[in-house]
């Protein structure tokens, strides 16, 4: 069942992105930035975690989860260390996406030659 929901919710988030491309005529960069901010706002109100429980990878794979986990990390650290935790805890949860992109980007640049 979780597969069906992850398909539907994940697909739906992509449709929202597609509508931002086609109807609002935003560039991919603007669209992704907006979606990340939306994810951060949902995370701030505590609405994103129920979505993850409900849709699994349908909620964690789209870029919106990036904003959510930044907020979640910051808030968790803020509980322990106060205001300073907001800055220090930010990348606590999210690190994997950025570190994976950097590591595999470097490996990709070492392995593959540019085409065309």
């Amino acid at each position, binding site marked *: 069942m979780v597969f069906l929901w992850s398909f539907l919710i994940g697909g739906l988030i992509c449709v929202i992105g597609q509508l931002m491309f086609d109807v609002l005529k935003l560039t991919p960069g603007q669209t992704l930035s907006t979606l990340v901010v939306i994810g951060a*706002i949902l995370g701030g109100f505590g609405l994103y975690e129920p979505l993850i429980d409900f849709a699994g990878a349908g909620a964690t794979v789209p870029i919106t989860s990036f904003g959510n986990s930044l907020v979640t990390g910051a808030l968790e650290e803020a509980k322990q260390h106060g205001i300073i935790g907001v800055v220090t805890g930010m990348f606590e949860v999210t690190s*994997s996406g950025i570190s*994976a992109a950097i590591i595999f980007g470097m490996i990709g640049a070492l392995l593959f030659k*540019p085409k065309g």
Partner: protein
Amino acid sequence: MANQTSQAKKYKDYEASKLPKRPILINCLKAFFIGGLICVIGQFISLFYMYFFNFTEQTAGNPTVATLIFITMLLTGFGIYNKIAQFAGAGTAVPVTGFGNAVISAAIEHRTEGFVQGVGGNMFKLAGSVILFGTFSAFVIALIKTIFSYWSGT
């Protein structure tokens, strides 16, 4: 001056009439299916990590994202990702694979300019704005929420 702006407006209307209409419904269907499919693949990877490495539903997202970006590296390197992306539009851009592709394709493309200037300098050319706005908005939101919880004394 007024004449010029009316001419500019006329040209803009003319340009709009010549631009191909975007097939919004078909684009949305493509984005829905490919985007949904990527999330289902992500769900398989999540379940794999949950069963074999003791992750929970909430924490399994991290290794899943890393695995998907690894797959993206292979697909980008062999030039397959571009072809899927042309078909799927936002279906491949919105999942984290699109973020990975933006970083990795920039790294591969600028390799000829050297590793420091080329790869290092251009890696986050496209993806940098996602990190910037994500981090900054998360900072503002977490700050407001933390201050608010001090006030309300919880």
